[in-house]
């Protein structure tokens, strides 16, 4: 390895940076004799870049050569940019060297399409084969499959990697076809289905033979770009919720559109990426996965887009004042979970602690309830009855929205998979 490798790293890290996913969770695995590495089950972030994003995996492209011409992508063939390609040996060795120094949890390998999909995918499989079989690497590997790659190659990769992703990128098929003429939804959904099938079959096999290989044990994920097309949040969240119904699906990532190619009339001109909207989508996604909210409760035909001024849980509560106040000392867990300002952790603490005696607002605060928000939605003996019903939703909205707007702009809840 030498200065040449450094230059490749510069080009190919640059070209990989817009992919959002970096999670390393979902598999737990010990080391093997003579090997290196483990997977802990919880996503470990090893660093945070100045954009506040987590570096967990070594996210890199094998090459940025590409035969396709997707409008939203900096690597498209019509762009005049420096191109480079790692050899499989080089990339495997670099991964190991980074891993030994505790810089990373593993590799997130993606690539532009060189020559044809199978040619590219085959080389990607070589990298992970080297890692697993020659370097005896037991850390985490995430591979983004190449659209159009054959199922044989996906099957080969599936027993080597922890997670696979196929990026949807654009939340509606007609807009995808407009922006990426060489792609369509079947080319995305077919490999997703194939990966799921592989996972389910491997689970069956492993019931019979413990030694049967695991197939993509950490499941699959996908990414959609937000704000490059007129698709609304209802469309995006219904898509996400349909994906989460599949047993293999772990994460949907939302990536605020950043214009990398200027002068394409198919794409909007934005002065800033839509970061607040992206944050609201992550919050909504979180509510669907951990708070038992349905997509239809967060967005519907009369509110097709999430409210940018207040978070989606608050938004729901303000549209449903009839649900409140909730008495934290008697209400069931599911109802407590719906109160703005009470998270999963505090809700659990409330339910276990109230058996020892009634909780007062001081104790709630100590337990972690954000009273500034929760106060309008709970009944608690020593609080005056000033709930959303007496004060009206409009009033509460004014009280909470200014603060939330500021918080949303500053603290983007980026997908960090603590305790997934």
């Amino acid at each position, binding site marked *: *390895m030498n200065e040449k*490798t*450094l230059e490749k*790293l*510069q080009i190919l*890290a*640059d070209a*990989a*940076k*817009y992919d959002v996913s970096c999670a390393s969770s979902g598999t737990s695995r*010990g*080391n093997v004799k*003579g*090997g*290196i*590495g*483990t997977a*802990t089950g919880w996503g*470990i*972030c*090893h*660093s*945070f*870049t*100045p*954009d*506040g*994003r*987590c*570096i967990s995996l*070594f*996210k890199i492209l094998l090459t940025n050569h590409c035969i396709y011409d997707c409008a939203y992508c900096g690597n498209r063939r019509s762009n005049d940019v420096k191109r480079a390609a790692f050899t499989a040996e080089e990339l495997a060795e*670099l991964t190991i*060297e*980074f891993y*030994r*120094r*505790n*810089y990373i949890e593993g590799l997130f390998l993606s690539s532009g399409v060189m020559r044809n999909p199978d040619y590219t995918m085959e080389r990607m499989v070589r990298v992970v084969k080297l890692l697993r079989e020659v370097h005896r690497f037991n850390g985490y590997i995430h591979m983004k499959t190449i659209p159009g790659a054959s199922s044989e190659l996906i099957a080969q990769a599936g027993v080597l990697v922890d997670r696979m992703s196929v990026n949807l990128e654009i939340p509606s098929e007609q807009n995808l076809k407009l922006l990426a003429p060489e792609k369509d939804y079947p080319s995305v959904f077919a490999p997703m289905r194939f990966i799921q099938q592989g996972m389910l079959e491997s689970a069956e096999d492993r019931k019979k033979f413990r030694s049967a290989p695991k197939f993509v044990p950490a499941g699959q994920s996908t990414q959609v770009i937000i704000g490059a097309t007129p698709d609304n949040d209802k469309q995006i969240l219904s898509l996400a919720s349909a994906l989460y119904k599949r047993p293999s699906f772990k994460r949907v990532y939302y990536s*605020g559109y*950043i214009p990398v190619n200027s002068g394409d009339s198919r794409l909007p001109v934005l002065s*800033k*990426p839509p*970061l607040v909207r992206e944050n609201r989508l992550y919050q909504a996604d979180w509510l669907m996965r951990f708070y038992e909210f349905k997509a239809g409760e967060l967005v519907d035909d009369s509110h097709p887009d999430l409210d940018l001024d207040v978070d989606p849980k608050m938004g729901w509560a303000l549209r449903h004042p009839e649900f409140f106040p909730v008495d934290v000392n008697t209400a069931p867990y599911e109802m407590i979970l719906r109160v703005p300002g009470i998270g999963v952790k505090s809700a659990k*603490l409330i339910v*276990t*602690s*109230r*058996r*020892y*005696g009634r*909780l007062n607002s001081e*104790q709630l605060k*100590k*337990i972690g309830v954000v009273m500034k928000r929760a106060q309008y939605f709970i009944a608690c003996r020593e609080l005056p009855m000033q709930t959303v019903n007496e004060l009206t939703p409009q009033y509460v909205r004014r009280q909470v929205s200014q603060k939330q707007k500021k918080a949303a702009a*500053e*603290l*983007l809840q*980026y997908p*960090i998979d603590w305790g997934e």
Partner: protein
Amino acid sequence: MVVFTYDNTFDGLLSCVFFAYEQRKFPDLILSESDQKPLFIDEQYHVDTEKEKSNRVWKGLGKKISKFARNMLLSVWLSELPETTMLLFRYIRKNIDHPQGIEMNFGDDDVLRVKDIAQKVGADARKLIQFVRFQETADGIWFAPVSPRYNVLSLIVPHFTSRYAGQPWIIYDTERNTGLYYDMRTVQEITFSQKDLVELKSGRLDNEKLSDEEAFFQKMWKEYFQRITVKERINLKLQRQHMPRRYWKYLPEIQ
């Protein structure tokens, strides 16, 4: 005021509990011998640490509270915060005195505080697992200086021995001047001389102490760190929130 003195070990603290119930004397303060004593002491007792007695307390506690809660007590101990001795004493006493134990009563200040401190200690250990950076030395040992907030080195041993089973490493707490050395078989405690410590604290070992390739891979990593940043989304506040400045000291990517 009733004061106990003890040897400032966890077993010593459990021995204090044993002593208290045996003598029916409950301390207002538990101090180590070297601590400054308050002015108004009515009764003072020195409690000897006896492994057998501390074991009995620990076992008895196991009947009242879960393994998870007992682990929390150990974590709280590692925090080395001045309040821990009395906090743990009160917590243990409340659980002994309550027929079913009060581990789940987070309305109780001590129960909540034990949970909070244990969580902070756990978070500190996780931060260490995230931000440890090994440098390959010329003699083939992978060396990482660290300065955690709490005394959490012992908590991260299993993680690193299993992950890097095939590479000898040293993780060294430069603030507490104590470290762990893994020789690919066992882990032992080591201490460097004051002179070496000065060099360690700078975070940079002399070039001749490092392997030939070390500087190159650090450069690659720094370059990667810069290239993977999305300039349109710069958010230093968020970066600091996830990776507080106190952990930056030994990160090559931020030097």
